[in-house]
């Protein structure tokens, strides 16, 4: 492999070891999720300057997905569906970055390498990488298509084989 894994344009040092470094600003901008709480302050915020995190994301979330908001496999990607590395990825000593597939973004590679360490749910990937869930779904869909990962569908409680699992959950909670 001659490709240099550092050749990828990293926006921030946000590899799997970087934890939850905030890539984007908090969701407190006018019009954001907590807009309702901010009504009273809106007038002054309109005139105020926004700096750093307060100015919001430098990269719009769906830029990473090249504008796509739906993954072909989205029906399968429940929040607690597990993303599992395929043997191809597990067998590669350096992980996804070392494979140096230039069709994949750093965010794709971060997801692939997290899945390579152990199966991660869609929600965990989004929380760990500080990406919106919808973006993670699209990126995981790409990784499935590229053969890096597969996704296991969570078992709905109604389809659990027997009540034994729930007793184990109860025992496990008591033992915490």
């Amino acid at each position, binding site marked *: 492999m001659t490709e240099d894994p550092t050749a990828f344009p990293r926006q921030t040092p946000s590899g799997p070891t970087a934890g939850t470094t905030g890539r984007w600003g908090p969701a407190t901008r006018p019009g954001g999720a907590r807009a309702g709480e901010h009504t009273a302050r809106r007038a002054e915020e309109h005139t105020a300057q926004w700096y750093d995190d307060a100015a919001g994301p430098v990269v719009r979330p769906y830029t990473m997905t090249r504008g796509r908001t739906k993954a072909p496999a989205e029906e399968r990607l429940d929040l607690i569906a597990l993303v599992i590395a395929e043997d191809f990825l597990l067998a590669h000593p350096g992980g996804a970055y070392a494979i140096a597939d230039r069709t994949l973004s750093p965010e794709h590679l971060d997801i692939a390498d997290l899945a390579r360490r152990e199966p991660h749910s869609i929600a965990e990937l989004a929380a760990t990488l500080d990406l919106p869930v919808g973006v993670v779904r699209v990126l995981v869909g790409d990784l499935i298509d590229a053969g890096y990962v597969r996704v296991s569908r*969570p078992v709905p409680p109604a389809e659990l084989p027997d009540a034994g699992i729930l007793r184990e959950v109860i025992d496990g909670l008591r033992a915490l």
Partner: protein
Amino acid sequence: MVFGRPDRGIRNRTAPLTLKLLVAGGFGVGKTTLVGSVSEIRPLRTEELLTEAGRPVDDLSGVEAKRTTTVAMDFGRITLREDLVLYLFGTPGQDRFWFLWDELAQGALGAVVLADTRRLADCFAAVDYFERRGIAFTLAVNCFDGAPRHSAEAVRDALDLDPEVPVVMCDARERDSVKRVLVSVVEHALATGITARRPATV
């Protein structure tokens, strides 16, 4: 790195069984505290399309082109065993994000409805939601300092809960107390028979 366990090396493992519980209740009732008492808590963001429902509250003047809004939820993971993982999702408090609940509720093992006796009405919507969908829930009264104490039966009457719905007093800050609440939800799900679940009849 919190979720990863690099010391276990890279190898293909059987994927664990994943289950989820929801934590619902009014704004400021202690959902975040409750999730944080038993698990490492993290914010989870979803980008949602702004709908007509959001118009009255989402002032879009100046950002009329903005089509999506970010909704943050509390999210926690409890590893019960290597092959058994329970996820907790704190539902977004604002009524206009009800549509998000449908995705969260799908396949949920059960739910906690957290209530504050000073503002009991704040949990009506969540109680209705889970009753209608036949999702097992426990009504947990977060006993805030200084809040008037009511008996579980008084709360049950006030909320007109079915007799089989567990009502427990809790302190969302106390790990053991929250563990008891979660155990109660799963026991209730077990007792009511999760296979009896009906689809929504809204």
